[in-house]
């Protein structure tokens, strides 16, 4: 009797404990799922807010004008000297012959972007034969018009509080009815450098700057980082000096990036006399920043190569350098590449150190080499976010989308490389 009683109480206890353990496991899982959901919702919020305010930047408003390239206007040999702004103004006046007063005309001329004149100039320079003909040309609309057409300005507020006045609204409506006002794909955004007129601003200059800067960073930090990792892991004696170096490398990986900027300013610009605001200096500074990351990743992947490989190679008579270059390095390389790509992605998103070396600057010309002044993508975002013109808001978000796109590509590549070449021991 007693015996059975005992067993049942033990099994009861056991069952209770089991239930509790299952519950604990479920609770833990739920907490994990909740954490992921919260993280996802933040991410979703970020993406929706950026995309919803930025997607309109991929379209730009254009106005069609009929331009008379009258031969009389091109007396000078130099085609750039002709009065192109005047041609734009004449065309607009012809479209709205009722506009007479000087003030109204000024408002009318503000409908098109100042770049319209340069569009005409480029047309004439590309093909001087159009002189003497009449052409209908799509030119960029002013940024305020663009904002109005895209609905970022409210039509219903009092006239004084709007940057587009009632007359201009009437003209815009007329243009739209005639089919002379259209939103088109914004190629300028992908081909132009920075500009203070939002409708003419593009990210190509900054993207090129980022490319050159990262090229320098990669060319320097990958070989140096890999060589340092190999030496420290495979050759260096195990003594106090290597310990000190290891601690310092780990420390440097956690140093705020602005410190590297200050260092770059002091050494590369003030001491070596390299030109300010150029990708070469930017690349050097970012090299300093990414080196620790690459060395640490490199050492970790060298460590993960099993000692049996080395021993086998040494055992059949390979020298140490042959062991490393023929066997260990090829096996560790995928891991090193992953670390490098992650380091590069970090460097791509960095602004703070570049502030110190003058890469936070207004640069219109698209850089053509590593010694031309340039900015990088995150700096361009920073500069646009700080501009008073409202139309830069959507440009900022669109530039963020481009930067995020590049980052996803790079991190995707890192994941792909890892999956493809990963060797499980």
């Amino acid at each position, binding site marked *: 009797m007693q015996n059975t009683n005992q067993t049942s109480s033990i099994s009861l206890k056991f069952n209770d404990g089991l239930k509790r353990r299952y519950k604990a496991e479920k609770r833990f899982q739920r907490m994990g799922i909740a954490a992921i959901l919260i993280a996802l919702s933040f991410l979703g919020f970020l993406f929706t807010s950026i995309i919803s305010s930025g997607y309109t930047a991929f379209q730009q408003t254009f106005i069609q004008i009929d331009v008379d390239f009258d031969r009389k206007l091109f007396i000078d040999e130099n085609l750039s000297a002709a009065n192109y702004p005047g041609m734009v103004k004449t065309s607009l006046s012809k479209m709205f012959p009722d506009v007479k007063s000087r003030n109204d005309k000024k408002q009318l001329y503000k409908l098109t972007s100042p770049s319209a004149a340069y569009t005409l100039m480029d047309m004439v320079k590309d093909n001087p034969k159009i002189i003497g003909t009449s052409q209908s040309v799509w030119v960029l609309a002013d940024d305020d018009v663009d904002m109005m057409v895209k609905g970022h300005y409210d039509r219903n507020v009092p006239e004084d509080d709007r940057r587009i006045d009632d007359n201009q609204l009437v003209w815009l409506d007329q243009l739209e009815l005639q089919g002379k006002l259209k939103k088109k794909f914004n190629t300028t955004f992908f081909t132009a450098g920075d500009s203070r007129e939002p409708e003419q601003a593009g990210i190509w200059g900054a993207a090129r700057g980022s490319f050159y800067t990262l090229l320098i960073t990669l060319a320097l930090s990958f070989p140096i980082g890999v060589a340092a990792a190999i030496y420290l892991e495979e050759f260096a004696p195990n003594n106090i000096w290597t310990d000190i170096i290891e601690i310092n490398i780990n420390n440097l990986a956690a140093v705020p990036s602005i410190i590297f900027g200050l260092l770059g300013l002091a050494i590369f610009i003030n001491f070596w006399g390299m030109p300010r605001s150029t990708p070469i200096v930017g690349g050097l500074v970012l090299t300093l920043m990414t080196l620790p990351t690459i060395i640490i990743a490199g050492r970790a992947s060298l460590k993960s190569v099993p000692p049996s490989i080395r021993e086998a190679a040494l055992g059949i008579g390979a020298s140490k350098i042959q062991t490393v270059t023929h066997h260990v390095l090829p096996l560790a390389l995928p891991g090193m590449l992953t670390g490098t790509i992650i380091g590069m992605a970090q460097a791509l998103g960095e602004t703070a150190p570049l502030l110190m070396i003058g890469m936070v600057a207004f640069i219109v010309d698209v850089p053509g080499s590593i010694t031309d002044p340039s900015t990088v993508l995150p700096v361009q975002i920073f500069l646009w976010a700080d501009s*008073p013109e409202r139309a830069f808001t959507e440009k900022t978000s669109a530039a963020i989308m481009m930067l995020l796109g590049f980052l996803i590509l790079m991190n995707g590549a890192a994941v792909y490389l890892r999956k493809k070449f990963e060797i499980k021991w």
Partner: protein
Amino acid sequence: MKTKGLLFASALTMAMISSAPAMAARDYISIVGSSTVYPFATVVAEQFGKSSGFKTPKIESTGSGGGFKLFCGGVGVEYPDITNASRAIKSSEIEKCAENGVKDIVEVKIGYDGIVLANSKDTAPLKLTRQDIFLALAKDVPDPKNPGQLIANPYKTWNEVNAELPNTKIEVLGPPPTSGTRDAFVELAMESGAESFDFIKNMDKKEFARVAHTVREDGAFVEAGENDNLIVQKLQANPAAVGIFGFSFLDQNSDVIQGSFIESEAPTFENIADGKYPVSRPLFFYVKKAHVDVIPGMTGYLAEFSSEKAWGEEGYLADKGMIPMPEAERKEYAANVKNLKTIGM
């Protein structure tokens, strides 16, 4: 194979570094300085670059003080040619320049900028005096019960400062101390507010500066960073808050925010140009004379900036929110630019 590749890559990069032109001639103008002048100087630079065939000048926004520091570093292509400033150069900075060999500096005033206090359009505009601003924002204010004594700022709402103001919490978003806008605001608004109290006015210079320039730190004044767009967004979200920034941001966002009246003058283009609106400051740029004939395009850039189509009453800088100088002043400075009249000449 791989080691060779690595060696080659590092050799290549080493070669690239050592061949980097340390003192190569610069074929573009390098400009540094104030973030307030930045939006105007960049427009001129872009116009100049597009119409002249020269390279577009490079403009860094370093703040007025940082700009002078770089500018006064010396003469030579590695130093900037022009620095923008939202205040006049200090005598200490002129001395520093001279020490480094920068002796001939041309001062060019380009126009004015108004500093506005603005709030959301959802509420009524504030009608402030400079005294109200001082009382609402200074760290130490005169004790209302015990005139002649200073106490820590006790005011929590605007109507405690001045019975005519609304009963809303004092919540002002403004620039940090590193900003030129903050310097100018403190000097133009708070200082004259402090001067309206005789006993503060009669303090010795150091003590006066401490009282007039120290902004309260108990949460009523929030340092919102250098990004004025952010302040505008916060004002929209919080109708009770008031923001401090440059006129061009009010001009661009006039559909959602409104400027407060100061001494019963609204911050409008006309009032600032006439000098009626009290909180406005001149903007400058400074040119290194020794660079004018060395760096290509300098003369052209200076001519573009001082042309009527740029800084005139109908010029494109006015469209961007800069307040032009009166005609006589424009003529004077345009002549200075032409003759490169240096400071102290």
